[in-house]
């Protein structure tokens, strides 16, 4: 069996980012941190997509994670980054565990639309909640690391470092998970679910587990995005946010756990460049680039890296 190079590649990338971070321009640091937060959500979507499920409502867990982090700050003045992220992850994971009993029974378009519907319910509820700022949302406390907040010039680097470490651990764990029997079941479920059942495995159980993992990752990403941006609002649960995650998933491809983060970063860069060069038509630039990827790299950007190895 070929050795898995992914952990080593990941470690190299993490080391490179941590080393280059202090010298990089501040705006790139922010762009990268947001990309890591979105990458975590997409990592979860990738797990689902490997068994053929597309969630059009992953923003639900992104938003739950963000609001869990925001509420901890608002009600209990908690500002530690790791505490907030843990809270976001647990809140989303627990919600997914309950909803999973319903959603794990559905496949294809029914799964997609049901998840979309649930995220829009959360959006509707949050918009009606005036105590949480309704559609305007509210600001988070300035984030701290173990009770400590560095000088303004270093805050961005601190958040980036935290994000990189968290994303690294998450990617390693998911990489490991994909190689366990339960993880390997995903392509089988996608190809022929009846055969999976005949083999004695429960597709519904496997999907339930994957759904909870994906939600926990989205919650983690949501909490990270919230502490990075400093403001949350119900639009985090809106279907366009879910659409953005699907967009990145398609852009990135499902070949490797590094792909979601790469996809999120490229998405961020394309969006920023598009905003800069064509403020009136940036959506067109974004759409065209996705079309180009779909036409020329049907398996996403990651196929650029995996093509050589496969042959």
């Amino acid at each position: 069996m070929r050795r898995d190079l992914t952990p080593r590649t990941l470690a190299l990338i993490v080391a490179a980012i941590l080393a280059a971070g202090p010298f990089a321009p501040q705006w790139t640091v922010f762009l990268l941190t947001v990309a890591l937060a979105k990458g975590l959500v997409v990592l979860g979507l990738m797990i689902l997509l490997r068994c053929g499920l597309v969630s059009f409502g992953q923003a639900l867990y992104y938003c739950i994670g963000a609001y869990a982090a925001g509420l901890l700050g608002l009600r209990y003045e908690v500002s530690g980054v790791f505490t907030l992220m843990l809270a976001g992850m647990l809140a989303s994971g627990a919600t997914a565990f309950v909803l999973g009993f319903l959603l794990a029974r559905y496949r294809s378009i029914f799964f997609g639309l049901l998840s979309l519907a649930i995220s829009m319910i959360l959006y509707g509820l949050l918009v009606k909640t005036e105590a949480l700022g309704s559609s305007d949302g509210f600001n988070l406390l300035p984030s701290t690391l173990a009770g400590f907040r560095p000088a303004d010039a270093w805050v961005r680097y601190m958040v980036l470092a935290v994000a990189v470490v968290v994303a690294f651990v998450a990617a390693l764990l998911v990489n490991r998970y994909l190689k366990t029997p339960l993880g390997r079941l995903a392509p089988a479920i996608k190809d022929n679910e009846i055969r999976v059942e005949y083999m004695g495995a429960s597709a519904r159980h496997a999907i339930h587990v994957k759904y909870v993992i994906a939600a926990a990752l989205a919650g983690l990403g949501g909490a990270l995005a919230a502490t990075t941006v400093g403001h949350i609002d119900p639009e985090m649960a809106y279907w366009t946010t879910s659409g953005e995650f699907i967009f990145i998933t398609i852009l990135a491809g499902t070949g490797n756990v590094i792909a979601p983060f790469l996809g999120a970063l490229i998405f961020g860069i394309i969006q920023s460049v598009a905003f800069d060069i064509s403020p009136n038509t940036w959506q067109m630039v974004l759409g065209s680039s996705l079309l180009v990827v779909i036409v020329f790299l049907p398996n996403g950007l990651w196929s650029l890296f995996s093509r050589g190895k496969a042959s």
Partner: protein
Amino acid sequence: MNAFKKAVAAAVVAALVPAFAAAQEAPLKIGVVSFLSGAAAGPFGVPARNSAEIMFEMLNAGKVPAPYATKGFGGALLHMNLVDESGGTTTQVTEFRNMVQRDNVDMVIGYISSGSCLGIAPVAEELKKLTVFFDCGTPRIFEERGYKYVFRTAATATMDSVGAALYVRDLRKGKIKTIAGINQNYAWGQDSWSDFEASMKQLEPGVKVATSQMPKLFAGQYNAEISTVLAAKADVVHSSFWDGDLEALILQGGPRGLFKHRTVILTTGETAMYKLAGSIPDGVVIGARGPYGPYAPNNELNKWFSKTFQDRYGVPPNYAAYHMAQAILGTKAAWEKALAANGGKRPSQDQVIAAFEHLTFESPAGKVEMAIGAGHQAITETAYGVTRKVHGKMTVANVKRYPAEMVNPPDGVKAADWIASGFKKK
């Protein structure tokens, strides 16, 4: 050796040229943010961008009437860095950082959505960049914390609701027993209604709320809500609907007599009054979120602004366009005040901020005072009137103006507390 000397000479010249140009009068790079796509683009974002384009061009040409006749900001020409406000708060915060840290803008003027403003304000503070909000309405920004680098040159939405309550009270003195509302269920609609309701209860003690309808934003169909409001038989109906929703309400409510038997107040009605002139009967109370559009004073600045805008874009400027012009002129006034205080030398950002605090300046809508929010939040007078068609042309009649201090809270008092205290002056 000769080649080496040439190279050195070229390098020296190359190094000096930009330095020399900078010593002349470097242009000011201003980030301008407004909705260019999405639902808010048509009614607010695009008129605001158009207004910014006119103002930048005319200021650079030195064609704006006194007191703004100098070119650009005190001679420094203006360069616009235009950004779309859509894409959500995360995108907006990212783009704000890009503007400040990548494109090195000297200041940012923008933001229509209150959500954007709440999200951007702490970032502006973190990056220490002068940021002027031109349109967003929520009073929360300067109520929740103080900012050094953030200013807002338009009054908050509180003014619209308090002004609306004062106007209907004056219009139907002593005859208001019940009020009803039909507002969109999101922050703007909720805040507009709660301020209006609280103000009415202060102005007419004993007034009852017949019904408060809160349909979903952009629902499009309001017949059920209109039925409920009609059945409730309220004396006054308040709505802060805007754009498509406002048009839908007028078109669906008109034939059912919504505007005939009760006083209906449309706080942003100005944006639809010309387009739907045929569907709005006489006697509907129309607001323009301040002394804008039909309520703008008849001064030189306004005559010039509304004519220039009308000539270029074929429509009169709406309040979003006025807000943008107001923000640009306010910043220019602050900049030039700082320039004068600095003995004619280009002022630093801190000097501009010092000049901006508690500044009073003229805009096409009259006097603007940066009076509250510790000198960072503007207050203006406001005006309301009722529709009246004169020879088939839509006009406003029975216009009443309310001075700034009467419709805005004093410095340091939260809007809701101020209304609850019976509009107590400090």
